[in-house]
């Protein structure tokens, strides 16, 4: 298969119209006990269906469930693992968005599957493959506060086992693509050896689904090309105009499949289609475009929904142009 398109993870939960803001309203009403949990769940289901429909309509080849049920990148997962308490707000990397920090109060344990029912719900409503997104164990460990484990390593390993179990369950449920978001390693590159140990646990006997390691909020400088030895099939990275990763890629051949974040999901400014086509041509000099995914650099939640939609339209137009010219 030639070039394909996808998004990095989340899709904006609300838009500008009253109809598109129903999740925001429902959450307010739920907080005030005006609607039941089932009512809220119903709205989350509807919005999830809607954002899958939008992705397919625009022409993306691999979709996500938009992470509509996630209140932030940490707590949706952490609240379903025994041993975490969810606490105060903390800034998420260098963004102006915040997450509630999970605090490790006791030994972490897998209770039951975290995402399988979400995956099944989404895949039943999608004609395109749905990729499951998991916050990776290293990032979960790093962005949480550890009050229980003597060493960080023990925390990371326990989380690795938990995420491994979850990935296995997703694979069993038929999920063909599983993504691990691991931005935190880019801020702690000296931990790379530990990171490899963590991923030996995560990826053990996980061979049916294609595994993507997503590395954004920074560059791969300093861990490239070593990171290519990790047991995943695909690596996602930021490749917006002028990003340091362009230089990093010149230093060694990229031997995995790539999820190339060429569209900037943190600014409303629209890239020109021609610039992006040229960028992909440039990329073709370093990697085989044959199985490459073109994607957004980050989750689309940093953009208002109408801008997010325009960005993914741009992405699919670029792919169409390239396929038409049979670059791949």
């Amino acid at each position, binding site marked *: 298969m030639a070039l394909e398109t996808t998004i990095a993870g989340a899709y*904006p939960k*609300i*838009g500008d119209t009253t109809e598109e803001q129903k999740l*925001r309203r429902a959450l307010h009403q739920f907080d005030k006990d005006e609607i039941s949990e089932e009512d809220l769940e119903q709205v989350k289901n509807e919005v999830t269906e809607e954002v899958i429909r939008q992705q397919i309509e625009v022409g993306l080849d691999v979709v996500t469930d938009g992470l509509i049920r996630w209140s932030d990148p940490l707590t949706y997962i952490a609240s379903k693992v025994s041993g975490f308490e969810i606490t105060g707000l903390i800034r998420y990397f*260098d963004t102006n*968005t915040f997450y509630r920090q999970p605090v490790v109060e006791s030994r972490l344990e897998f209770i039951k599957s975290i995402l399988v029912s979400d995956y099944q719900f989404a895949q039943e409503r999608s004609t395109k493959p749905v990729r499951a997104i998991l916050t990776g164990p290293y990032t979960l460990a790093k962005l949480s506060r550890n009050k229980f484990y003597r060493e960080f390593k023990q925390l990371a390993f326990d989380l690795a086992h938990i995420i491994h179990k979850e990935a296995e369950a997703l694979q069993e449920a038929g999920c063909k693509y599983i993504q691990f978001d691991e931005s935190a390693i880019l801020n702690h590159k000296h931990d790379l050896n530990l990171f490899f140990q963590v991923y030996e646990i995560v990826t053990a006997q996980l061979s049916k689904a294609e595994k993507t390691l997503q590395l954004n909020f920074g560059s791969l400088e300093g861990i490239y090309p070593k990171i290519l030895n990790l047991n995943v099939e695909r690596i996602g990275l930021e490749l917006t105009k002028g990003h340091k990763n362009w230089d990093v890629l010149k230093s060694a051949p990229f031997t995995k499949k790539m999820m190339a974040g060429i569209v900037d999901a943190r600014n409303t*400014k629209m890239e020109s289609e021609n610039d992006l086509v040229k960028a992909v041509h440039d990329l073709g000099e370093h990697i085989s475009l044959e199985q490459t995914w073109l994607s957004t650099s980050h989750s689309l939640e940093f953009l*208002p929904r109408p801008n997010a939609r325009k960005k993914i339209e741009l992405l699919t137009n670029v792919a169409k142009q390239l396929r038409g010219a049979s670059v791949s």
Partner: protein
Amino acid sequence: MILPTTTVGSFPKPEYLTKARFQFSKGQISKTELEQLEKKATKEWIDFQEEIGIDILVDGEMYRGDMVTYFAENFKGFEISGLVRSYGNRYYRKPVAVAEIERANPVTVDWYKFAQNLTKKPVKGMLTGPYTIMDWSFDEFYPSRRDLCLRLAEVIHDEAKDLERAGAEYIQIDEPAVSVRPEELELAIEAMGIVTSGLKAYTLTHICYGDFPKIYPKMLDIPVNQIDLELSNNEFDLLDLFKKAPFTSDIGLGVLDVHSHRTETKEEVKARIQKALKMIPKEKIYVSPDCGLKTREVEEAKAKLRVMVEATKEVRETLGG
């Protein structure tokens, strides 16, 4: 006087004003009607600060919604975006730079004058810094973050000059975003240099909690007379950093946790001031809350400020100030 007391800028809006702002957004009351209530609330806060004995006053920002959007709405070249999520179910609109940023008229000067006329004590001119406005905006016009940031620095410099001309002895330029990207600290320093260039007023900047170990002591190069820091929120851990390199600017010592409903005790606040006194000469210390108080209830904010002023007075007496 040693240990002058002040606040970071915003105070909670009284209920009648919150209601009026909502009515104004629905077109139910006029701009003039809203403004009258904003003035009433400003006067109440000035009176309160005088009554409890704060030394350097603020107007309380009764007329501002968000510290970045307020300036973007009043500068040319910005539009306002659709809704983006901040956290949980909280959304906000971001400024979008779509053309050259210009300042058609002074933005804060009339409010400064209004507040200053109500009191003999100095009122601070309150601005948001160029780095923070840049970092919290989308940019569809400038080629780089640096270009937008430096252009904003020029515009905010003009505003600071106008505040000074209007009589402001203290000008605060807040940069809460500065601690988030250590690799851009140089840019923030350069931009602040443009803002404060040639000002005779006492200048200060407020920085919120971030990765301070990564920007300290380099952040002391921000060209202002005082850096105001959030300290209570992190149990004063920051002070340990100052052992490695002395804090050379004046310090605005955050002694009230603005995120907590609980009113600090006088003893707690005194202990915080005394801890700082072990590290920093008394002449260099100003006492203030951690951050703006706008997210607290009116009565919570007032109770906290009373404790802050009383505790400071008692410490001052022990120092013979």
